[in-house]
């Protein structure tokens, strides 16, 4: 029994250390967003300042890159969410031939290294003579986001109570009315979650983007280039702001989920 107690403590201790390992860099990014570095290539904390937060766009190329990442992320998210949701409905709600082939087609992009996906799209664009830039990045991002949307939305559809839809039909709702008034509202949290996932995947992607960007610069590509020339501390402002935004989003959805559970 003593040994079990010891093992328990030890496992919990390891787990807490690992959590620290996962969270430490976030704390460092937040700290560095208040740093005035001693030189362009220094990564050490030198002096506290609020300047970086006051003028986040002091290096204007960085803000252009962030804006471009948001635009690309938005377009890619809308396209991937529409394509993926339609496919998820087919997989969750219909029987058809070729189901396993479709499963493989969804699974393979998730199992393919980004390096391979990026270079293969580059090979396609070069051989087709399509110039690379904003739109080739959008195409690449939609390609790796679709699978994740399908999987997320399908999981939501599979967990839904199909008796609610049957009840709607029994109450003389047409198929379209059932879909609009029952199925879609129930599936919506899954679709929103899939869209958020797609946006974060797109916004943060470096490897696939790097091979298909031409001269277009997204935020991760800006950071990559700046790592060689010297990182402006405002990069950490963007990193911290992203973190805070995402955290608020998670908090808002959990609180909302808790409230709806209490009222129902």
């Amino acid at each position, binding site marked *: 029994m003593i040994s*079990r107690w010891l093992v328990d403590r030890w*496992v919990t201790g*390891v*787990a807490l250390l*690992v*959590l620290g390992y*996962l969270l430490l*860099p*976030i704390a*460092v*990014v937040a700290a560095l967003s208040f740093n005035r570095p001693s030189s362009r290539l220094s*990564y*050490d904390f030198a002096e506290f300042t609020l300047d970086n937060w006051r003028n986040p766009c002091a290096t204007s190329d960085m803000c252009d890159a962030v804006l471009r990442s948001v635009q690309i992320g938005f377009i890619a998210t809308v396209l991937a969410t529409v*394509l993926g949701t339609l496919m998820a409905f*087919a997989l969750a*709600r*219909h029987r*058809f031939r070729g189901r*396993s082939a*479709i*499963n*493989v*087609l*969804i*699974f393979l*992009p998730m*199992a*393919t*290294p980004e*390096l*391979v996906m990026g*270079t*293969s*799209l580059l*090979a396609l664009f*070069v*051989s087709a003579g399509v110039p690379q830039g904003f739109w080739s990045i959008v*195409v*690449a991002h939609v*390609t790796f986001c*679709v699978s994740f949307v399908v*999987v997320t939305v399908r999981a939501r559809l599979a967990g839904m109570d*199909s008796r609610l839809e*049957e009840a709607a039909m*029994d109450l003389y709702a047409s*198929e379209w009315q*059932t879909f609009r008034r029952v199925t879609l509202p129930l599936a919506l949290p899954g679709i929103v979650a899939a869209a958020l996932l797609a946006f974060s995947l797109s916004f*943060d992607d470096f*490897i696939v983007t*790097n*091979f298909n960007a031409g001269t277009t610069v997204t*935020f991760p590509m800006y*950071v*990559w280039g700046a*790592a060689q020339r010297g990182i402006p501390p405002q*990069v950490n402002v*963007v990193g911290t702001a*992203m973190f805070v935004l*995402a*955290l608020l989003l998670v908090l808002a959805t959990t609180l909302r989920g808790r409230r709806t559970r209490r009222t129902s």
Partner: protein
Amino acid sequence: MIGHTGPPGGRDDMSPPAHLPGGSGRRTGPQPPNRSGRQRLLPYLLLLPAAAWLVLFFAVPLVQLAAASLYDPAGSLATGYAMTWAFGNYPDALAAYWPQFGRSFGYAGAALVLALLTGYPLAYVIAQKAGRWRNLLLVCVVAPMFTSFLVRTLAWKTILSDNGWFVGLLRDVHLLGPDGRLLATPVAVVLGLTYNFLPFLVLPLYASLERLDPRLLEAAGDLYAGPLRTFRRVTLPLSMPGLVAGTLLFFIPASGDYINAELLGTPNEYMIGNVVDSAFLVRLDHPQGAALSFLLMAAILAVVLGHLRRTGPEEMLR
């Protein structure tokens, strides 16, 4: 009388006569009982856009990459490449860059071992011990993904810096010599890889361990199994699906990654991704880049298919 020798239930199996209300047919699901031609076409119409997109921008490019890997290596991007079925590109690329290949799998493998040693206890504690802290701890696991991959990798440059407290601490306890450093060594690259892909290992493991019935662990204890034996005979086998999925989700991106090697290492730590990047974007040697990229794909596919034979793709997608 001969006609009655058929299967006795033949008549009864037929659908009810048309004048009865067809209410019982609703049981099967949301689809109406009689499916018209339009209904049978519907799933294909829903599938078509995404399937066409994936074929056009995922499958066709892979074929194009395979083709590019067999182009005449004497060509260039400016003059155009000729298809000469140059299978020699593969052995040539391997001969020139086998150290980088070895490092890709060596570093990713070392990171995987570290990630298993650290991620398993974490997933276990969240799933079995955390109680009402569970959701908070899960948010902490995915928290690194809330900020940018490159920015958080650069943060490791600060943490592992030669003048930082961490290296100072290691020097004080003589784990590092007085001039010892971590940045620009394989250790930094492996630590970065472990850190960046650890959530992909922990989440599927957590999902498996969360389904583990704690009564099974108690039963093992009641039957005089020690902690180690309980782990080996009960916990580990029951967490296998999560372990397999997590291992793949960790190893695939880690072996193809080159951000950690570039930002935390030196050219002496370059992995295959760094070489492919420079082949396509700097040296503009597309046949070689394509061959290296395809070799990585083949190696990873071999690992994935080995795993899939045990679990099946439907299981992986869950």
